[in-house]
């Protein structure tokens, strides 16, 4: 049995919207094992992003607990939560969010710099990571010179380079065409197996479903199903 990386115990999140309370999550309990490759699916407003926020330490639950390897995130200060993200979490976004003035190499280097590592200590590691996502020929290019698919590859390399335990990917294929989406998902699946980092997608994209090994469906802030998938679309 896999060891749990993330545990959510009866988590609720209520936002104040004007005079009204809006319940984004309602008594959600969930476990995410190490090396998981799973997705949160559901319509807009179902609570996917709120769930990613809580798991990523970007927000705190109104009630319930979010545990990372048994440690309650609630007890962490703002700086400790920042350190938790810096050391353990990689992020991938729909719009890539690459730094436009930096090259591919520098964008991948960026999280390591945030972790206090010196560039000359990690140069080879960064170059190897860029090679893993197939962009060694583009390593000195700026994001504006890359296609959408290439940008997302850079974002994947950036998320993985610090060897995180968990990657949160919010709609990573939403801005890509079908072919690029498959390439990206294939790449992520391969890297998940190689790096053993758990990956959680938040997505509407049907294509993602074919790659993941577990799917959690959210509706109105509650889990409506949580079922395994075969994740057979891997190409090696």
């Amino acid at each position, binding site marked *: 049995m896999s060891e749990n990386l993330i545990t959510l115990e009866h988590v609720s999140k209520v936002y104040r919207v004007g005079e009204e309370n809006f319940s984004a999550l309602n008594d959600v309990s969930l476990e995410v094992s190490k090396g998981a490759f799973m997705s949160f699916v559901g319509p807009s407003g179902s609570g996917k*992003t709120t769930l990613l926020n809580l798991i990523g330490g970007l927000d705190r639950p109104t009630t319930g607990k979010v545990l990372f390897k048994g440690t309650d995130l609630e007890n962490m200060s703002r*700086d400790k939560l920042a*350190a938790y993200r810096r050391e353990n979490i990689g992020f991938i976004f729909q719009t890539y*969010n690459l730094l436009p003035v930096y090259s591919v190499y520098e964008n991948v280097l960026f999280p390591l710099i945030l972790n206090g590592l010196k*560039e000359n200590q990690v140069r080879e590691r960064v170059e190897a990571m860029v090679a893993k996502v197939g962009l060694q020929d583009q390593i000195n290019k700026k994001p504006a010179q890359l296609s959408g698919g290439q940008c997302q590859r850079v974002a994947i390399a950036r998320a993985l380079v610090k060897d995180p335990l968990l990657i949160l990917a919010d709609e990573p294929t939403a801005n890509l065409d079908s072919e690029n989406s498959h390439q990206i998902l294939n790449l992520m699946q391969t890297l998940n197996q190689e790096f053993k980092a758990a990956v959680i997608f938040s997505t509407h994209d049907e294509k993602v479903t074919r790659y993941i090994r577990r799917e959690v469906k959210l509706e109105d802030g509650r889990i409506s199903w949580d079922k395994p998938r075969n994740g057979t679309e891997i190409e090696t």
Partner: protein
Amino acid sequence: MISFWFRGMIRDKARFLFPFTVVTIGVALVVCLVGFMEGVFMGMIDMTANLDSGHLRLVNQSFYDEEHLRPLDRSLANQRETRDWLVKHSDPEVDWAPRIRWGAILDVPDEKSETRSQTPVVGMAMDLKSPDSEEIQRLRLKSSLVQGTLPKGSNEMLMGFQLAEVLDVSVGQPITLIGQSFDGGLVADNYQVVGLVRFGITAMDKKMVLIDLASAQSTFYMEDMVTDWLGYFPSGVNFDHYEEVKGSMKVGLANWSPPKDWAKDDSPIILSIRDQQNIGAIMDKFQVIKGFVVGVFTFLMILVLWNAGILSGIHRYGEMGLRLAFGEPHWKLILTLAMEGLWVGILGSLAGSLLGGSFAWYLQEVGLNMGDSFAQSGLMINDIVRARVTVGGFIQGIVPGIFASVAGTLVASMAIFKRSEANLFRELEAG
């Protein structure tokens, strides 16, 4: 880490070029303006000191009280003892120069020795003939001569060139001085104009006459007497030091046994340049104005850089969000922004100093001829005003330049403190 952000800063024109340009222009303006103000003001102070007040001045109280009347009977006797006392009780760096301030009617005769023209003049007598006298150099008389020579014999006179034009006097012209002697009698003595001088100060070029000290003592029956002792520090000595030396001399003066030939009611006082002609108040006002100018420029720079920081914050909204999401603490993010502000401030200040300093240096070397503007002013100020490039001028430009850059960045960064991580996913997805 610093080099990583520095690289990004240099590449990103929006976050570097505009604030850099603002700091550069601001610092250049401050350095140049302060240099120019210092130059004009200090030029005026130096000129006043050299011609009239000295940095320190020993004078009889009763002479000082009625100075405009030139009461020669209130002069100080015993030059040698007085000089010895001054040298002993002041700073060793001070050079003491005896002077006589006199006033007389200047009578210009024609070829039949009848009066052709007359005018009242104010005159100064100083040591123009001793080989160790600094006076000629102090007043730059050699370079100021437009015609003739410096006095070599007795009863020779230097005259302001504009006064000579008014009186239609040329070199070699005999002149009669008609005035009052030390003991109140009428004196008339003949002089010869040996040189015409352009002091560069309209007020003096129109009214001033210089004669040698020994000649004045002979003309006004003032053997071994002078009206003033002027003390000069070397250039670069701070005004505060003048006051320190003056303070210690005042203590010495209280215990001084006056020389034997002094009158019983002689009461010498020691003054600094600040005490004379309202210069102290003018200096204080100048410092306030200078501080105000630097303050206004600094405030404007902060204002512009604050706005630049806000624009940069909008431009880099995604980057800031990403850095927060990736786990950079708020304080560290702001610290790196402050470091960027510091770098922009340092680079902009260096560039601004170079630019402003170059222009100030040009104004120092070449100057700006404002003689026409000063013609009617009577100010003791050189017609060619010059800037003065000083270390202080650079400091007054560089420090506010760096401060404004960091402060502007920090004020603009306050929004980052308020930014909530809970919205980062949505904000970053919005692109």
